[in-house]
């Protein structure tokens, strides 16, 4: 019975962790699916947003809604800056050049953030201050519930944007064939910029939920977000949005269970081992081409 309770509790924890990974992966995959290029500065743009919010919090003790808005706007500003500098100039050129350029901006954004707020750890106001919910023998933090709810809402809104709006038609056309899209009259550079803004907005929202759940922010948030987003995307198949969600949830479950049964030292090891095995055997879902 205790074994079963442990298993269920880990699964529940894994799901909420997985929801945050799924959200990070959605943002990362959106850019990868549309541009076929990896944006390494994805996480650092989120870090930039979170540090803007921390700064606003330290200066004016602003409320949560304002901090959420500042995180998202800060991430969008940093994300579109990355697009203009790293991706727009290499639109028809080398994918490696764009990726390396985005690595350079990673350093730049991280340096900028730590220059303004140099301590290694800052407190961030709590998303929810009440007690956790008890479900029989299981406990569920309200923050986790908010994270799960946010994941569902973002997935729904993203689906609606892609399949029910004019902008979504343009995005899917660019995913299918960028050359054909520009001949159909779609302003492809503008679509790229807007996709970056959307990706950064999803990343910023996720970053806000993560730091306010953890009630702290460190400069590691940038690297952590890029790595988790990329790992979850790769687990779910490169460039597929449903795959990103599945990959995020799978990564969360895997981490929660391996942390409990194998110890925290082996947590990341198990995730990277699985990725290594999957890349070696390449199951059919990992060769998906389309992001829609």
């Amino acid at each position, binding site marked *: 019975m205790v074994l079963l309770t442990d298993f269920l509790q880990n699964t529940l924890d894994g799901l909420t962790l997985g929801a945050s990974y799924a959200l990070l992966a959605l943002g990362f995959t959106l850019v990868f699916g549309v541009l076929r290029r990896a944006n390494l500065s994805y996480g650092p743009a989120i870090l930039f947003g979170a540090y803007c919010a921390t700064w606003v919090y330290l200066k004016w003790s602003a409320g949560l809604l304002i901090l959420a808005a500042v995180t998202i706007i800060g991430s969008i500003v940093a994300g579109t800056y990355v697009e203009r500098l790293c991706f727009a100039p290499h639109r028809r050129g080398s994918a490696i050049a764009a990726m390396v350029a985005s690595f350079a901006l990673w350093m730049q954004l991280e340096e900028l953030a730590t220059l303004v707020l140099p301590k290694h750890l800052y407190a961030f106001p709590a998303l929810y201050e009440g007690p956790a919910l008890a479900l029989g023998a299981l406990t569920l933090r309200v923050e986790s519930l908010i994270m799960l709810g946010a994941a569902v809402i973002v997935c729904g809104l993203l689906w609606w944007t892609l399949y029910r709006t*004019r902008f979504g*038609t*343009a995005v*899917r*056309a660019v*995913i*299918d*064939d960028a*050359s*054909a*899209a*520009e*001949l*159909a*009259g*779609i*302003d*492809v*550079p503008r679509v790229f910029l807007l996709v970056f803004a959307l990706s950064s907005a999803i990343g910023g929202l996720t970053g806000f939920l993560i730091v306010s759940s953890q009630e702290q922010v460190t400069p590691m948030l940038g690297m952590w977000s890029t790595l988790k987003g990329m790992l979850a995307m790769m687990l779910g198949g490169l460039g597929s949005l449903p795959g990103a969600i599945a990959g995020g949830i799978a990564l969360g479950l895997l981490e929660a269970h391996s942390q409990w049964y194998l110890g925290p030292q082996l947590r990341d090891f198990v995730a990277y081992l699985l990725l290594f095995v999957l890349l070696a055997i390449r199951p059919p879902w990992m060769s998906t081409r*389309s992001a*829609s």
Partner: protein
Amino acid sequence: MLNVRDVVTAYGKIEALKGVSLEVAPGSITCLLGPNGAGKTTLMLTVAGVLRPRKGSILFGERDLTGLQPHAIVSAGIALVPENRLVFPHMTVLENLQAGAYQRKDDFEPDIEAMFGRFPRLKERAAQQAGTLSGGEQQMLAVARALMSRPKLLLMDEPSLGLAPLVVEEIFRIIADLHRDGTTIFLVEQNAHMALRVASHFYLIEQGRVSFSGTPGALAEDELIRRAYLGSAH
């Protein structure tokens, strides 16, 4: 209507177009002939804004289109049906048509109905993914998608490429129909026999230069061209 003047387009150091000048008269079907690698597709892509000319200019009516982005060329009134009919394979036929009308702010529903009237096969397959269509159907979809932007000038790059003879007949019937309905057409075609039946003016392009310009009659009279493009059938 379209005025290409001394256009030079290069891939790196290799000049694919070495100073091409030609004209497409309003209301005409103008056909560009030439061997593989002569620069036909390069010229189409240059006019459509995908490639930037290194020298020369492209005028459309009074407007200078030189160096504009492809989407700006579409809004100026030129649409290209590219070689190998690039449809959006993971989008439905209907969504492909909607994507073609991306620039339009007005209600384009009547145009979709008009396309379905002109291409009944597309109506049957409206909800189907474009990648599952046959080659001929994809070509019709590519033409219909280009028409959704209501172009004044339609560029077509080898619309008969790789299609069965009966489908080629159908494509040329559509070209003739579009022309009758007032669209000016600038066509690249290897199939000179089919092109002779519809086009009113011909250009021959060889090694990046225009080597012949004239009417179908003049084309058929030119001994060398006849041998190269029309075979011995005439």
